């Protein structure tokens, strides 16, 4: 419990005003998939660019000046600092405004926020990353973190599904992983009308047939739309995964990112403080969690 006048020991990296956005330049806009662009940002201030550190699974609050602010997961790995990569889907006002910006325009960034994945706990174990659709955005950070520190993890398995090949985020990057031996990279599409897809075709859960899983020594990081949770979680439980080895990244409305504005509250937890990464055990014990 915190005392009222307790001076915060852990200041956000960026400043004393946790709401202060710091200006960052859009250095690259990569059109991965229609309406799912990858934005690469670099802080205008070199000091910030050098010192910004985050954990996989954390997010930032991204401001498009004059329009608004929103939470966006950091898709780049902390092992590759200096720039931030954000995979943003165009859905509403602020995301639309972001899509109107061009390379060299500036946006505001503050963070990182959220708990991130419990890396200390995961290390030394197998990791199973399971994502559908946009769920790859937060998992990509974890993926590259693990690959860049390969010796700290046992087996790494990625299961990622998209509707069609052209909907697959980070497609080039991920297909390049398929042939690597230090990761079991399983990619699937629901359908392949063009007939060019060289990987799996079928729904995401079918990938379990191709994965070797040792539930008691594994952590599973799952992210995606509700259907993904529905099917993947059931399979993991059937396999005998401990409930607190299943890690989910939850989405809630957010206005502050720092546990004040109240919007992301679930029962008695704040998604922005105690989340967005929750264990499955937390999930079933919190009302209206998923």
């Amino acid at each position: 419990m915190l005392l009222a006048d307790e001076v915060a020991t852990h200041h956000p990296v960026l400043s004393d005003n946790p709401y202060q956005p710091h200006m960052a330049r859009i250095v690259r806009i990569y059109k991965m998939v229609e309406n799912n662009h990858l934005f690469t940002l670099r802080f205008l201030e070199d000091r910030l660019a050098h010192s910004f550190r985050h954990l996989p699974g954390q997010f930032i609050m991204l401001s498009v000046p004059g329009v608004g602010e929103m939470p966006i997961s950091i898709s780049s790995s902390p092992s590759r600092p200096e720039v931030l990569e954000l995979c943003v889907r165009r859905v509403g006002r602020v995301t639309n405004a972001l899509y109107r910006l061009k390379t060299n325009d500036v946006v505001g960034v503050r963070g990182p926020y959220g708990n991130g994945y419990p890396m200390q706990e995961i290390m030394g174990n197998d990791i199973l990353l399971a994502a559908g659709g946009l769920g790859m955005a937060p998992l990509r950070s974890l993926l590259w973190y693990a690959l860049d520190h390969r010796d700290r993890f046992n087996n790494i398995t990625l299961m990622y599904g998209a509707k069609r090949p052209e909907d697959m985020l980070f497609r080039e990057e991920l297909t390049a992983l398929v042939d690597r031996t230090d990761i079991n990279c399983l990619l699937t599409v629901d359908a392949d009308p063009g007939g060019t897809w060289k990987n799996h075709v079928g729904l995401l859960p079918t990938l379990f047939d191709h994965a070797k899983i040792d539930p008691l020594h594994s952590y599973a990081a799952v992210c995606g739309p509700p259907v993904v949770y529905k099917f993947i979680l059931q399979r993991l439980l059937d396999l005998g995964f401990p409930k607190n080895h299943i890690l989910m990244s939850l989405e809630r409305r957010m206005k502050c990112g720092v546990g004040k504005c109240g919007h992301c509250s679930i029962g008695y937890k704040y998604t922005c403080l105690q989340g967005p990464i929750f264990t499955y055990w937390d999930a079933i014990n919190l009302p209206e969690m998923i």
Partner: protein
Amino acid sequence: MGKPTVGIFGLTGCAGDQLVILNCEDQLLDLVALIDIRDFLMASSENRTDCPLDVALVEGAVLTNRDAERLRAIRQRSNLLVALGTCAVWGGVAALDRGADRSQLLEEVYGEAGHGYDSSHAQALREIVRVDLNITGCPIEKEHFLAAIAALLNGDTPVYPSYPVCTECRMQENNCLLMERGLPCCGPVTAAGCGARCPDLRVPCIGCRGPMADANPVSLLEVLEQKGFDRRQAAARLRTFAPEGVA
């Protein structure tokens, strides 16, 4: 990009929303420097009635075939159509005619001549064409209009409050007219944005901004009934400015 082309139109109404635009005395000259007003019959006699428009601002309800035809023509030539004011958004006071026999009312008033008039029951714009943005209010708030133009110039759309007048009234720390004085206040079901103008002046809200999206009029009516109001009359009061959305 050049200046966006804009048309300002009035269908059947009181011209209050167009007047609010002209009432932006401090911003008017900046405004005409930022946007290219091509068609504004109320303010200019040289209008381009056929050119394409980036934005059409349309006030008033549809009450005649002529209104409907004009509206369709405006929609055709405009990229973005903005409904201006409660009449355009909800039908406004003209829509008090829902359920009334129009031809009988016309005859009552104009006698035989009334039958010849081009006259139909009041409709909101979205009942005829697609509407891209609704700015409600009877009349609209100046600030909302200016915010809309500023946002549109920025390629964006404005955000207006989605809670009721009641919320603003509480923020202003007014004495509640409904609870303290038993007055028939429509604040709990009316879309905020006016700063609770009326209750702030100790005058019960009559709902001139139309209903808020999440209104619960049935519950409010029950309260009004408990306070001694006739249910039918109270329901009619909640419907003064908008025929739908409210009980």
